[in-house]
């Protein structure tokens, strides 16, 4: 049995070697090869949609994506196990909690807007940056202190390493630390869990990417500016970030073609908008 397994892995190795060889050789001619993407789960819907469309145009390109969290993106790229590392911040620069990744190029692909959300029965509609800082660091623990009912605030946070968390901390809390303990504090692992937690927990506050906001929760205004596309475009709403595809050096071959496809006006104005991301061209320049 062991022998069998060994021979299988040898075959696996051989096939993978030829696959790598083929991708290197085929890059020059008609587009072939494989692209492995890892990283941010928030960018996953975008990646998967782009993959579907791209593969229709280039049936010989094999694209596989996985998502385990933003930071796995650039790390997999550095280790050489992924061609593209999807990440919610520019990983070629330092951000709170994470050092920069040398030698990697950040290819911007989409703009995401983040919103502070509360359970739909919470009476508060707008919070200032200071109030948000105090709530998320545990200084304010009752809704009545920020103009709501007399009820304890339940803080729902994303886990460390989440791209949404990094962006929210940088832009909405202006770098202030989150609390990490307390009877009314919990962390969730994904956007979906965050959504469910805030929807189902009375007096909860959290934050999420704009596309996930539903009618069962309320996106609060930050400093009296509502989180929506218009306010991002006119520059009044600051809590947004750019999602990047990190590559080792400048991308080439199938990887380059795939990134260019996502950055193309056709995709940006079409599917990307339908997924409720904001096209890059709208905020740049």
């Amino acid at each position, binding site marked *: *049995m062991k022998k069998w397994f060994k021979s299988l892995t040898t075959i696996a190795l051989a096939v993978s070697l030829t696959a790598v060889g083929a991708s290197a050789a085929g890059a020059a001619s008609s587009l072939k090869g494989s692209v492995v993407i890892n990283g941010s789960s928030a960018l996953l819907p975008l990646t998967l949609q782009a993959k579907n469309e791209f593969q229709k145009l280039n049936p010989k390109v094999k694209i596989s994506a996985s998502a385990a969290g933003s930071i796995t993106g650039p790390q997999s790229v550095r280790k050489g196990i992924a061609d593209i590392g999807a990440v919610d911040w520019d990983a070629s620069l330092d951000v709170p*909690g994470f050092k920069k990744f040398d030698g990697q190029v950040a290819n911007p692909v989409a703009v995401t807007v983040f919103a502070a959300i509360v359970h739909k029965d919470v009476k508060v509609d707008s919070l200032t940056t200071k109030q948000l800082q105090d709530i998320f660091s545990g200084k304010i623990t009752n809704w009545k202190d920020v103009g709501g009912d007399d009820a304890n605030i339940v803080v729902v946070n994303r*886990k460390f390493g989440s791209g949404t968390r990094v962006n929210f901390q940088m832009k909405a809390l202006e770098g202030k630390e989150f609390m990490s303990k307390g009877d009314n504090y919990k*962390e969730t*692992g994904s956007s979906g869990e965050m959504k469910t937690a805030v929807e*189902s927990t009375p007096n909860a506050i959290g934050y999420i990417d704009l596309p996930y906001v539903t009618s069962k929760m309320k996106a609060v205004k930050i400093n009296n500016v509502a989180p929506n596309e218009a306010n991002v475009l006119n520059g009044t709403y600051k809590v947004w970030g750019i999602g990047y595809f990190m590559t080792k050096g400048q991308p080439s071959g199938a990887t380059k073609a795939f990134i260019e496809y996502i950055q193309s006006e056709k995709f940006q104005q079409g599917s990307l908008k339908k997924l409720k991301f904001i096209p890059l061209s709208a905020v740049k320049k």
Partner: protein
Amino acid sequence: MLDLHPTGQASASAELGTSLRAGSGPSFDRKARLRLFNSAFKIACIAAAGFVCLILLCILFFMFRTGILTFRDVSFSEFFFSTNWDPENESYGALLFIFGTFALTALTLLFSVPFSVIIAIFLAEMTPAWLRNLLRPVLDLLVGIPSVVYGFLGMTLLVPMLRDLTGHELADGLLAASIVLTIMVLPTISRISDDAITAVPKKYRDASYALGSNRFQTIVRVVIPAASRGILYAVILGMARAIGETMAVVMVIGNTAQIADSLFKPTAVLTSNIVMQISSVEFDSTWNHALYMMGFLLLVISLLMIVVMRFLQQRGGKNA
């Protein structure tokens, strides 16, 4: 190699008699061949058993190799005796997760073992055959429900229910997690115990009834002790799953690095902390090493628990 597919022999039981007759052929050639097959089969079996152990050793080594690097930067006593887990500020106290894991496993077993054993007795000894044949697949079905679904149900139904019952703002914590886990391990424990009880030879029961015992006495004094080996294995398996379950626990335990002094306080266990953070920290950082160390620890804890249970069983066996 071909002999390694004994499931293909499913139909063999029907021709049990004929096959036994075939074994008595006197030809020397046949005997030699049989002997060869016999030893080849034995070697294949040994290889398979060795392979299973090899996997465990590989995993242990793999976890240990990375995990041990933790102690380059963190002192031994801090890791094991401090409850302050704040890696962003260089505090790596893992005691709270270890405590959480023990507490969660104990609670889960407390809930699930009595229920499971009763269900197993119910299935194996009391229900009529038609109902039994209906219920067994239903129980097996529960094992196949993805843990994500259990977690989601826990999050959307169980936790709000606990919240209403207890008046806590956030009812995530050990109790919610152990209830979800109980439901998850219930089919495993009860089905394997059920098989163990069913496998107790009929003559034991007949002897017990012939001595004038009633059903209660037969079950408690004869059947359960005779099946105890299988039941114990079922419990170990359930416990193992409870220790190792991740996806469901993460959704209802709260994931907060604080020691649980109440059943309703958001806390974290080894697995939930590993799964939440392993993909979010940098490779080759102390934090990453510490998570691998926690994985290693998890393995050691479950191995220890198994050794202890085996020891207890041996002691119990001698006393009885």
